């Protein structure tokens, strides 16, 4: 069992807490003037996204989580699992809906995604920062109103709904930022 001491704690380090892999999001050494020092640590549970607070005696060791991240290409879904292929080894892995999370609504196939693996199993999928998708349904815009303040909902080919400016018509391809879920621009073919 690989362990890591509090002196090596840094943001992004993956450790096991109560049997769950977590990532350190904040680490602060606190120390009385004389006496025992502690590390106050905030962690995000990778499987649930929940945030935890823990305190360790400085110098204590914690089990490291076997977590690594790799690029895979999204292939298809059979309804239960979402399949990804490694671009070099062609190895195929299946991620469940929980691991897929929000990524599902941005992917239609062929996109390169960042897959987080715990003990070799996918636990979270990060889609590309930007995707280009076609609008399948949106109300016709009100002519003349091109101000940026307005906007209307548009359904994309993957089922995601984003707000687009009023002038953007149906069947247009648009660029979306998957981190914010916001419209970026129209795509000129």
């Amino acid at each position, binding site marked *: 069992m690989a362990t890591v001491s509090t002196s090596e704690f840094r943001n992004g380090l993956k450790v096991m807490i109560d049997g769950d892999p977590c990532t350190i999001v904040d680490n602060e050494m606190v120390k009385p003037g004389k006496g025992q020092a502690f590390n106050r640590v905030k962690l995000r549970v990778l499987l649930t996204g929940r945030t935890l607070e823990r305190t*360790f005696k400085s110098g204590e060791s914690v089990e490291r989580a076997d977590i690594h991240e790799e690029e895979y290409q999204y292939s298809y879904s059979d309804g239960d699992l979402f399949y990804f292929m490694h671009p070099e080894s062609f190895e195929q892995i299946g991620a469940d809906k929980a691991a897929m999370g929000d990524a599902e609504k941005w992917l239609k196939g062929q996109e390169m995604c960042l897959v987080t693996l715990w003990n070799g199993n996918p636990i979270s999928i990060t889609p590309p920062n930007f995707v280009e998708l076609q609008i399948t349904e949106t109300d016709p815009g009100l002519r003349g109103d091109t101000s940026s303040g307005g906007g209307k909902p548009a359904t994309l080919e993957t089922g995601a709904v984003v707000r687009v400016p009023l002038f953007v018509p149906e069947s247009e391809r648009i660029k979306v930022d998957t981190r914010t879920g916001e419209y970026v621009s129209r795509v000129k073919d």
Partner: protein
Amino acid sequence: MSHSLLQERSTFIRAIRSFFYQREVMEVETPVLSTATTTDPHIDPFTTVSQGRDGEGPERLYLQSSPELFMKRLLAEESGAIFQLGPVFRAGEISTIHNPEFLMLEWYRPGFTMEHLMEEVEELVSNFVDLPSIERLTVAEAFQQVLGVDDLYATTAEQLRELALSMNLPSAAEMELEWDGWVDYLMVLAITPSFAHAALFLTHYPASQAALAQISPEDSRVAERFELLLNGVEIANGFRELQDADEQRHRFQLEQEERQAEGLETIPMDEKFLSALKEQGLPDCSGVALGVERLMMLSMGKEDISEVMPFPIRQV
């Protein structure tokens, strides 16, 4: 570091020096390298090796975590009141208020009681920070006021643990600590944060946390030790200094045993210091160590110690 910050630092240091010159406290310099250092199990010293003299083997040396032991040897030689501004070193201490090397101001006042020295600390600090008068609270009173503990010295480790659990403090259930460890835990997680906007002298630490302070003649459960907390940050730590050489040796031994129990490196006791204490004797005095950069942070309104240092650890 910008020129104006560098200038501010220089003005700050000059003001500290003139404070002591005006009071006829003599400035001294003592070694940064020594063959011994503190045995405190909660301080991790930097060690280095030098070739020994005249065919002796290599000699292990420590970078000092405080000039205390050397300054007390000077006091034992009847130096009178002395102060020192210089770098000190503590491995692994990095945070927004810790840097492994920092500037320590340390001074000793023969004939001063702890209360008298606290007044002088207050006078010095008020030159740099706009303060109302600094409140004085014993550690037991702080536990009473903040946590409702009626008599800290009547508690057991288990009771302090239950208190931490009832407050839902992080990892209280997993912590394995002795009584002193629980006092430290509650201090940093509950008591200090509750004084995040206060100016406070915490006084009379538990006798088990006396470090190099005298046990109080009025109450043997506590030591004549104080800390200055400004906005929840420890700025200074002071003692009515322990004069009893045998008691001092005994405390070093306890610390060495604790280091051993925790699997830490053995640190030799400073025999030259102990012998000065025994042979010449330390005059009745009080002394205090103050983290200069922490006071600068407050004075300049900075949130991170790296902002007041020309070369913080990440840049060396």
